[in-house]
């Protein structure tokens, strides 16, 4: 990697953190919704 | 009918002139603080002067935005303004003109005095005043959109700055560049004409957007 490994892997690590973080936050938001849900019943449940 | 709205706001500004003066004092103090931070060395100050004066003017006119609709919203006069038989576009233009006369013009007239603190020459001071005269109406027009959008919201003052500062960037760039060019001696027409173009663009679009935002906020 010619000594740039830190920057290259660093930026992909940041990508993973950001995208992964966004997805995780989203799923957590979904879980929060599952508990107080009066109306909408998704077909699966 | 147009002059009534301008007259009304000017008398109100005159009656509540403490707010108006506070905007000017903010500008004065903000600009005079910089030499204390940067150091008294004149040619460095001269280099920094356009940016400092323009950023201070930008922040001062943004402070003045808070008063544009808030008082009218509280005492119900804004509803009446929406129900006047004349187009809301004109009412907004009238109010923004009154705000500019009270906050923008004094800033522009005051700027040469502050420019001297930074060791600017005569021509640069003139160009600074002219660029501010051209730029502050754009700041008021674009800012009025933010003021209308954040009517009655908690944290309104701070929110306006987040909404409006990115939209102020072109004005800041062209304004400061005009003064910079005059100091370096290169052509000033370029950036001043671009400021003029921004003014024309915002004169057409901004009041329409503010009127729409007012209708939304007052629903």
């Amino acid at each position, binding site marked *: 990697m010619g000594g740039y490994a830190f920057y290259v892997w660093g930026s992909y690590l940041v990508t993973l953190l950001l995208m992964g973080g966004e997805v995780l936050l989203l799923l957590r938001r979904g879980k929060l919704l599952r508990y107080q849900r009066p109306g909408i019943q998704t077909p699966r449940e | 009918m147009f002059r009534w709205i301008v007259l009304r706001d000017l008398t*109100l500004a005159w*009656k509540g002139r403490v707010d108006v003066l506070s905007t000017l004092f903010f500008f004065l103090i903000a600009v005079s603080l910089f030499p204390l931070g940067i150091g008294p060395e004149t040619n460095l100050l001269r280099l920094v002067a356009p940016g400092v004066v323009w950023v201070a003017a930008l922040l001062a006119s943004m402070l003045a935005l808070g008063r544009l609709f808030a008082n009218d919203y*509280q*005492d*119900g006069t804004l*509803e*009446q303004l929406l*129900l006047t038989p*004349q187009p809301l576009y004109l009412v907004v233009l009238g109010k923004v003109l009154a705000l500019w006369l009270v906050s923008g013009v004094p800033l522009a007239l005051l700027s040469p005095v502050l420019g001297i603190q930074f060791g600017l020459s005569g021509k640069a001071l003139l160009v600074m005043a002219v660029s501010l005269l051209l730029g502050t109406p754009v700041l008021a027009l674009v800012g009025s959109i933010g003021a209308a959008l954040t009517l009655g919201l908690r944290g309104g003052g701070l929110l306006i700055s987040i909404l409006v500062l990115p939209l102020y960037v072109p004005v800041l760039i062209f304004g400061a560049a005009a003064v910079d060019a005059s100091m370096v001696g290169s052509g000033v027409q370029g950036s001043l004409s671009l400021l003029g173009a921004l003014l024309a663009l915002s004169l057409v679009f901004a009041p329409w957007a503010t009127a729409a935002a007012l209708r939304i906020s007052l*629903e």
Partner: protein
Amino acid sequence: MLEATDLGCVRGDRRLFSDVNFRLSPGSLFQVQGPNGSGKTSLLRLICGLLAPAEGHIRWQGANICSLGEDYFTSLSYIGHRNGLKEELTPTENLRVTSGLAGSQLSQQEASSILGKTGLSGREHLPARLLSEGQRRRTALARLLTCRTPLWVLDEVLTSLDSSAIRLVRSLIEEHLNRGGIAVIATHHELDLSTDSFQRLDLAL
């Protein structure tokens, strides 16, 4: 002639009312009643065009008020919960500004004579912030006398008014109705006005 066809209103996510219909010919009084939060104010703001209806239309003289835009406002006077007065200005200045904006300039004397009619004589030149709530309400009412608009929309206009002021309001409305004007009023007080066409809408149902 004001006409509403299956009017519906949603505020935020809450449906306030739906399929409200009424037809008001000149000279008719329309009283809107209902518990707090039942949408009285929203209905009045719908009529003024301040609020867009979720469903249905409102027509003034046959034309939809959305398409009428500003010309609809030439024939409308609205008094809401808040008085619409500037605290720093005196009643005469307030009145001159609102009449100027509505297109019919008033001189100093005309303004103070109108204010005299609404019982504010002697206090026309005091800044509005020194006036009591009732006096401010009277200044707001004075606005109705400045421009002869055929449609009055009054929201809780009788609150914080003393008995003489209530009598004044009744006479103003009666005069307005006799002139062939329409009045839409949201209030709990019994208006018991002698008028040929009187309609009442109770939003509680």
